[in-house]
């Protein structure tokens, strides 16, 4: 069974017909040729397919495309508005927060979404109380980013990059 949907991907309207079993991830990669979202496990366990979906970070392998008709999606490419690097991307480069680069688009989207969540007062497992928004310590960053796996082992640099970017517009 097929359905027609429209997605807004990195600012551009894209209409397509999809098999109703098609994941949002496969729709982006296979059907729309979007390379700035990656498939690492197809099970929501690695985070490589993370995008900002209607403003919140989400693993697109666990979303069916047909269920997101009309949604707005920002991938790592879309973070760089007008081709200008997002502060988070800049910080990833400065801190060499990547090696093979395959988890990187997902890490970036996750990091930006995570900063927004923290700013909105969402607690994490390591937050000591919910009375006030958590201060984004390294422990908080590590915990909140633990859904994005990096097998090259760039975590130390990823956390450093996020720490730096949070004060430089990294959440926007």
């Amino acid at each position: 069974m097929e359905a027609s949907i429209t997605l807004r991907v990195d600012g551009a309207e894209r209409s397509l017909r999809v098999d109703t079993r098609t994941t949002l991830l496969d729709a982006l990669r296979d059907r729309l040729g979007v390379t700035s979202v990656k498939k690492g496990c197809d099970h929501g366990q690695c985070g490589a397919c993370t995008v900002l979906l209607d403003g919140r970070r989400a693993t697109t392998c666990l979303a069916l495309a047909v269920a997101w008709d009309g949604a707005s999606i920002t991938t790592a490419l879309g973070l760089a508005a007008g081709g200008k690097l997002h502060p988070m991307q800049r910080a990833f480069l400065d801190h060499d927060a990547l090696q093979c680069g395959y988890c990187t688009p997902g890490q970036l989207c996750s990091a930006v979404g995570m900063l927004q969540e923290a700013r909105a007062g969402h607690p994490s497992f390591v937050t000591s109380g919910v009375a006030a928004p958590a201060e984004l310590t390294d422990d908080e960053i590590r915990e909140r980013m633990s859904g994005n796996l990096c097998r090259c082992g760039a975590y130390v640099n990823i956390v450093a990059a996020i720490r730096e970017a949070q004060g430089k517009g990294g959440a926007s």
Partner: protein
Amino acid sequence: MMEGGQAAEGAPSGILEPRAMGKSLQRMDGMAKVMGTARYAFEYGPGSPAYVHLVQSTVARGRISRIDAGAARSLAGVIALITHETAGRLASDENRELWILQSDEVHFRGQVVAAVIAESPEVALQAADLVEVEYEAAHHDAALRADRGDLYAPKTVNAGYPTDTAEGDAEAAFLAAEVKVDSTYTTPMEHNHPMEPHTTVAVWEPPKLTLYDSTQSVHSVRAAMARTLGLDIGQIRVVAPSVGGGFGSKGEPHAHNIVAAVAAMQAPGRPVKLALTRQQMFCLAGYRTPTIQRFRLGATRDGRLLSIIHDVVELTSRFKEFAEQTAVPTRLMYASPSRRTRHRLAALDLPKPSWMRAPGETPGMFAGEVAMDELAVACGLDPIELRIRNEPGRDPASGKRWGNRHLVECLREGARRFGWSARDPRPGQRAEGNWLVGIGVASATYPRYVLVGSRAVIRVESDGSYRVRIGAADIGTGTWTALTQIAADALECPVESVRLEIGDTDLPRATVAGGSSGISSWGSAIVAAARELRRLHGPRPGSGAEVSAETRKPAQDDTFAQHSFGAQFAEVRVDRETGEVRVPRMLGVFSVGRIINPRLARSQLIGGMTMGLSMALHEQSVLDERFGHVINRDFAGYHIATSADVMDLDAVWLEEVDERSTPMGSRGIGEIGIVGAAAAIANAVHHATGRRVRDLPLTPEKLLV
């Protein structure tokens, strides 16, 4: 710490003067990677691609008695279905791992028994589910035990090392020794799991086969494919643009490469895409064998080794042998008048084990370095002092002089930086709330490999830039950047004047990105070509000048043993109620020759240490011997370290130029970071708790018993 001495014979023009080398240039493919525009294998395939999904055996040994593919074939959108009955005959069974869909035989659970080609990935998956395969199951054997009666000695172990070695009467010396350690250590089956699944996009445009492949060596893939498929080398092009990690598992082609090629031949002109699923990577992409290692150390009361005995039992697949060289580091780490090392294999009905980051050194140095910690405790000696007392003057394995053995400097520098001197040697002395705190140390080592067989071509372009071509790979290691820096120094030009091309068999032949040999081997070829350019065309070669040169074996390898060394320090906290282990601090100090790019080198080293931390705390593929398969086959079951596991972790290195290994003065850094990391953590756990855990990983239940 600077390695002195005159210019080495192997580099007649001496060591390159570092101008670009040594600079922390930003990763050259970094911009494309943060934008998500760097293209990996699956993202190639112009036009309208077809998709392949694999059908895998559900028995571990036996024969396929019947395949009913009717329902699958009749599904709309299915292009073709390949089984052993319909696949064409392959040309060579020299590589048994690639000899697939050729008979009804099943060698392991998860083997490819059929493949569906379809118009979409959804249809391919659905059709694969509809294929019904019946088996005549035979008795299978997937149980690794040290007391099996059928263990055998392979002819050699991986990388061509002897299976066994013996110097002196190690057994007698052990029995006579005043202090003895006799322990058995185990490491589990582990899987590489690069984040990018193994992927091949194949296009068959007769007589030309193009593969966009996720590989550590385009030329190895081409050679194996040509042999197996019966094609000429010239018919095949392999392209590996960006590669999403490998860690050894993409060092050689696997069965899926052949399936993709065979499938492409069923759909000429169309790109055919095959990416392994994460679950399939547990049986079709290699893994590290589990090991059972009995380690015996005999010493004097003041900690001088008299005997070292390392007996390794591990597994191979029955259909194709792979023997991990686990005892090899034991042959060179410490001085002892007697020593015996031995590898024995159980041939089982399992997928083929293969390379995983620092094969041999990683499991072997876990056992050896925990054994040394046990000996230190038995002798009442500081573990660093024990290692220093057993420092060998020459390489015990080869009898050669050491080229650059700086283990002691690494240990001392690490001790200074880590605050080792404040350590109370008694275990279980430091507690903070529920946490027991301890620190531990272990040595690291990795051989310096320079592989011959790479060729670099340099051409002067009309704009004065240099086109540097070599079929090397960047699997996240920083090849694009490091080779550009090397080329710039060799050509005495700015990095902006170098136009590097890698990752394609249309480029000159290159050896594998494996064994930490890549930059050493490819860089040496580039330097040789640059020197040839100078020799033939003078200091200002004109546009169009072109030269090529090959990597040569370093001239002094017959005289000097060249190895890298390091020291790993770890602080752990163990929850006394839950047994949870955390690693708040880790430091590695390494002696690896000249660092080409400090920023990227640190990433490589801490990446290896992070994988070592992951190995120490989490990783194990749980094999159900009754069925012959891994049961925890996804990231929910097979845990790797996440950002929440890695806290203050850093790597530093000695300032050093290795004048005998490469004209760059470098030795290779991709693997040594993982070596010894798990041992340092296990030793720290002993220091924290007094509990000696000899079986990885250090999961909570092992600390609660």
